[in-house]
């Protein structure tokens, strides 16, 4: 880790460590995600995300990584090939969508993260057809990624960018409570979905929180 916060950047091994931590946090939240998905879905989102991150962990631990691309791809492919469910493809695409066609990268900076996740958002939208306001994980992811992009423009640090993204993801989760669902199992509920937050959006928020925590801890441990 560099001394200047402004210059924080992660190598492939650190990115791998960060996502191992993210997986741990998502798995810890399995009961919460189950509960949220039970209210307006089928209750398996927590299980699905756990399976996905467990497989991702297996994949990550099996290999030495030198490129960021490989870390993202390993996680994404593990998810797509094992999770199933809507979130298997959607969260798999979260990891794969942004590195597709990207030149091999050895360090993750805030601008690169913003760029990758911007690609993720557009891939997910293309695949899943959901837009903002449809009560999906897009409602947390898209604003979070916009936050990252704004932070890049404001020349902020990775940690600061993640803090912005985290808080915008949280706000996005809150907003999903007001929406009727246009996708997924909650769709049939119509107005009855109002008042309940979206499970996938919650996962996005948990993921940004965990990323921010990991970077924060890493800096503090310097």
């Amino acid at each position, binding site marked *: 880790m560099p001394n200047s916060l402004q210059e924080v950047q992660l190598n492939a091994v650190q990115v791998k460590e960060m996502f191992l931590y993210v997986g741990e946090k998502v798995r810890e939240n399995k009961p919460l995600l*189950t509960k949220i998905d039970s209210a307006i*879905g089928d209750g398996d989102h927590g299980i699905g995300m756990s399976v996905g991150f467990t497989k991702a962990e297996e994949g990550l631990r099996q290999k030495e990584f030198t490129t960021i691309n490989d870390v993202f791809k390993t996680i994404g492919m593990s998810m797509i090939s094992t999770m199933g*469910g809507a979130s*298997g*493809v959607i969260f798999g695409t979260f990891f794969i969508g942004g590195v597709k066609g990207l030149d091999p990268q050895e360090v993750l900076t805030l601008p690169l993260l913003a760029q990758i996740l911007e690609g993720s958002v557009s891939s997910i939208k293309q695949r899943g057809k959901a837009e903002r306001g449809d009560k999906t994980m897009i409602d947390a992811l898209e604003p979070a990624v916009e936050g990252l992009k704004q932070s890049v423009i404001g020349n902020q640090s990775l940690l600061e960018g993640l803090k912005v993204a985290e808080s915008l993801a949280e706000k996005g989760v809150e907003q999903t409570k007001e929406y009727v669902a246009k996708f997924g199992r909650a769709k*049939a509920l119509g107005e009855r979905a109002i008042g309940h937050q979206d499970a996938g959006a919650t996962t996005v928020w948990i993921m940004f929180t965990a990323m921010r925590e990991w970077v924060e801890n890493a800096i503090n441990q310097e």
Partner: protein
Amino acid sequence: MKKVINNPEQVVEETIEGFLAAYKRSYQKVENVNGIVRRDRKDKVAIVTGGGSGHEPLFLGLIGEGLADGVTLGNVFAAPPPTNVFEVAKAVDAGKGVLFIYGNYSGDVLNFGMAVELLEMEGITTNTVLVTDDVASAPTERKDERRGIAGDIFVVKIAGAAAEKGLSLEEVTKVTQKANDHTFSIGVALAPGTIPGATELPYTLADDELEVGMGIHGEPGMERTKMMPADALTDKLLEKLLAESNLQSGDEVAVLVNGLGSTTLMELFIVNRRVAKVLEEKGIQAYDMDVNSYCTTQEMAGFSITLLKLDNELKDYYSAPAVSPYYKKESIGGNVYAK
């Protein structure tokens, strides 16, 4: 939440092992993925069905002669990953194309959709019919957004018979799509089922409550009401189905009264009795009535009613033999279990 399982994360693998232990002479596993295919595959359009597990005997009970050639199974209530779908389709393709039939859920559409892309790259032709029988899940204007529930059985039955007859992929797809368009279901839940490993009920229904239109993954339905006698409940469901299906006096239907898990066959018969009575009163001919638990939601209490509006073409395919360990029709000739 007590279940006879070893490990919640292994239930699908172990289910497949247990199924094959019993029926290995007729079926085999697809390597590396949770999929099962018939051993005696024919030179015809291949039918592949599947989706999340937890609805047994659906989907693995639907492979066999005159039915599907392969099934792809996801985790409990989760669509199978694209690789699963891909491997199963590849295993059953006889060069005449593969027809996918599955319930219209985001997860399935996404995963099967990705598999279709992979199969295209391998030069395997596919078509897809989404089952959308659940009239409770979207209004008539948005019929194609509806979920698939027990209607899967009728749609796969028709598709299997059409494929067995040697029709082309386009032709099988067409009649299968028609079967779906003619299939109307609605369910009702009295008590929830739980996913293996879950420690809490996904929702609760009071001792005197039921939920009309509940989905087969416990997705909330149209209306929560007070318990009512079986006849009144059946009338309520039928009213919705008859309106949606626009059945007229003189029309013929195949009926499925399907248990969701812990509702007894006794109760299903009591419902079927009323269905028969109401159809008779309306002059609608019940060509066949099937009373069974084919499409379940773990130990959910409740049932669904499915009507398949028959025309001559659908009737022919419906009457063709179908043979699997959990679904059998021998050639029938109207309202019977015939020999």
